[in-house]
């Protein structure tokens, strides 16, 4: 399966090509190149998935395939950094997800970004992002993953700051980069600790379950916890940064300053699930050696999920609502991984997490693209500027409704199946956590339908010009993704992805399923009652719970806390003295040297008179004096 290398190479070539020609070609040409390359990549990914699952499935266990592999840097006999392509169920699934969503976004951007300045640059960055994300997914070792992880961060930075003339976009891109970079420091340290003790980067060896790999770490502890726990926890911090887990989630809502298709691709479907993917990739280590860390991940995920869902209920910017919804849903995936066991039905959480990752990527991309379509029509992100749009934008309306039903967990849409499996896995682990997640699911349904009714129903807001349906380039991806969302739930996901790579059949648990449907329906009807027509109830509720409402709409003041820590504490007590030292001591020394030199040169400048004969006088006089000294003394 050597051809899989093309999946990586093609987007890279496309990036270089589009990046170099920049504005020399017509935007349409550049866009067509980017899109057709992505089309090929998507086809190759589908082909790979089909071949992988059909050929490997019969032996009972899905093997890991490494069709391409080069040794890049060799440090010691065991420790070397390689580059390669690794195919196993989750990486193949991710290939499909990334290339599909990316292709949809490429097509969609034709319509959405039409006439924008820097259209070619936009497509170049999209190609770069796709390349990095695919590289991350197929990484054969943790260091290669780290490299592409950072590349993904860079392309995310570039795309959030795409409108570089807008100060908010620039600030948001910096915020995203710094916060994730900060988390990546943890990731890097984790990698270093892990490789220091195990002397390998390779996923195959690390996740083999062979206890000899970690033999070097037994007994090594640091501050009361084993070194391995520290390593895996630090690696999780890296994942938490990319996946916007509390308290490193603050960058994601701001990242919505980027173009909406970018939000759909990066900040909903692909990059933000990299953290989930990372944990899933190292799942055997977490499960067998550091179960405490794994449970910690579950609780962090659960808290983040609830926390983000509450905030999402009161936000008014539709992209912000979707951003918090994304954080919440990634929390679900993390919970699901955290509660999972290993093998067969024990590993339901693992499978459910990957399943939810897959379905979420589809319907969240759909939601974002739908939101983009709405924003395209009304030129605003604010919910209050919308209302009654269902008459003007039928396609967007239907597809958005499908996505809302899916995320709320209404059968037969895909979100129902994946979410339901997460809930049952959680129930088995700890019923209280299960009920909490069910409550969060209810909140999810509520805020999604609040969004839906506010946009498409409710009072019609007077627009400057009548909203109209988006062009075909934007509606085709919507329809495609909606179709996937409707049918993806029927994929027997357990046949393909499981913690021990042996296919197993998962079935719905009627109790859990029934309860989640009921909760979702109640939440939807509540939302319908409050927002379909004008109703004083929302304001009344807001007044009753004034404190909670205010705190939630300020995102629980997490940003303020960060600002306080950075500005008041770090800037004042660390940075200012360092800056003083730099300016006065280091610069002072350098300036002093320069001043002395300058003063000295001005003083001796007259030596260099430019008159040959003066020089000759001096030379002759000097020669005579030296000769006289030598001879007479």
């Amino acid at each position, binding site marked *: 399966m050597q051809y899989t290398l093309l999946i990586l190479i093609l987007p890279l070539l496309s990036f270089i090509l589009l990046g170099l020609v920049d504005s020399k070609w017509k935007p349409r040409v550049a866009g067509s190149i980017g899109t057709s390359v992505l089309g090929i990549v998507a086809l190759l990914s589908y082909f790979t998935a089909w071949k992988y699952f059909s050929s490997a499935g019969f032996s009972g266990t899905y093997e890991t395939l490494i069709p391409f592999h080069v040794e890049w840097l060799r440090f010691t006999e065991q420790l070397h950094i390689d580059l390669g392509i690794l195919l196993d169920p989750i990486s193949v699934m991710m290939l499909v997800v990334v290339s599909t969503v990316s292709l949809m976004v490429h097509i969609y951007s034709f319509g959405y970004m039409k006439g924008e300045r820097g259209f070619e640059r936009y497509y170049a960055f999209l190609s770069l992002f796709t390349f990095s994300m695919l590289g991350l997914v197929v990484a054969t070792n943790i260091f290669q993953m780290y490299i592409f992880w950072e590349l993904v961060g860079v392309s995310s930075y570039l795309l959030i700051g795409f409108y570089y003339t807008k100060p908010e976009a620039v600030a948001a891109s910096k915020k995203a980069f710094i916060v994730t970079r900060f988390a990546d420091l943890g990731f890097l340290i984790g990698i270093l600790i892990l490789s220091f003790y195990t002397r390998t980067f390779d996923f195959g060896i690390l996740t083999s379950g062979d206890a000899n790999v970690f033999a070097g770490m037994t007994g090594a502890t640091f501050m009361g916890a084993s070194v391995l726990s520290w390593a895996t926890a630090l690696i999780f911090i890296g994942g938490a940064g990319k996946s916007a887990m509390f308290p490193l989630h603050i960058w994601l809502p701001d990242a919505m300053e980027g173009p909406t298709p970018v939000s759909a691709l990066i900040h909903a479907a692909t990059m933000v699930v990299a953290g989930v993917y990372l944990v899933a990739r190292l799942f055997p280590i977490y499960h067998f050696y550091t179960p405490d860390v794994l449970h910690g991940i579950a609780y962090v995920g659960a808290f983040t999920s609830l926390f983000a869902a509450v905030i999402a209920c009161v936000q008014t910017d539709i992209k912000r609502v979707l951003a918090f919804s994304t954080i919440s849903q990634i929390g679900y995936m993390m919970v699901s991984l955290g509660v999972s066991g290993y093998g067969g039905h024990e590993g339901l959480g693992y499978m459910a997490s990957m399943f939810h990752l897959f379905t979420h990527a589809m319907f969240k991309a759909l939601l974002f693209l739908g939101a983009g379509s709405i924003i395209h029509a009304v030129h605003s992100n604010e919910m209050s500027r919308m209302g009654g749009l269902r008459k003007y934008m039928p396609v967007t309306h239907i597809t958005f409704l499908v996505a809302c039903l899916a995320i709320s967990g209404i059968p037969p849409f895909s979100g129902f199946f994946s979410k339901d499996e997460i809930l049952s896995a959680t129930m088995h682990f700890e019923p209280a956590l299960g009920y909490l997640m069910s409550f969060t699911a209810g909140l999810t349904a509520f805020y999604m339908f609040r969004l839906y009714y506010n946009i498409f129903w409710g009072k019609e807001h007077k627009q400057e010009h009548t909203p109209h349906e988006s062009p075909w380039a934007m509606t085709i991806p919507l329809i495609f993704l909606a179709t996937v969302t409707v049918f993806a739930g029927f994929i027997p996901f357990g046949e393909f992805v499981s913690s021990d790579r042996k296919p197993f059949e998962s079935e719905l648990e009627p109790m859990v399923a029934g309860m989640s449907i009921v909760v979702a329906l109640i939440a939807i009807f509540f939302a319908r009652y409050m927002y379909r027509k004008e109703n004083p109830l929302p304001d009344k509720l807001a007044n009753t719970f004034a404190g909670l409402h205010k705190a939630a709409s300020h995102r629980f003041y997490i940003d303020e806390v960060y600002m306080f820590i950075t500005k008041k504490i770090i800037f004042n007590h660390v940075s200012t003295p360092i800056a003083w030292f730099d300016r006065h001591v280091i610069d002072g020394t350098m300036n002093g040297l320069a001043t002395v030199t300058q003063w000295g040169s001005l003083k001796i400048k007259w030596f260099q008179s430019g008159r*040959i004969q003066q020089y*000759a006088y001096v030379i*002759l006089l000097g020669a005579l004096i030296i000769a006289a000294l030598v001879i007479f003394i």
Partner: protein
Amino acid sequence: MTGLFDNFFSGSVPLEGYIIVSLIMFFAGVYGFLSRRSLLMILISIELILNAADINFAAFNRYLYPGHMEGFFFTIFTIAISACETAVAIAIVINIYRNLNNVDVDNLQELKEPDSPEEIKK
């Protein structure tokens, strides 16, 4: 001093004779180099200085190392080098003359940074 007078009218030419002649020539050259302002005069002075050195080479070679030929060849090479130097120097002088209309060495200060703002205006 006595050596010179001993051989004043008898015997062969003493080595000091040559050295004194070249010394006079050399310091005449030095005087010209230091005092004259015309570039061509400076060149003439340089020729004198080089020639003085040549005489020394030849004389020392002849008197002290009669079997060898180092001084002899050195003289030949010096003559060749002074021919080169003169050719290039005169090309430069002519070029300067084209630009400044004279060959006065005091005028050649274009590359120097002016000492004061007044000079910049000039």
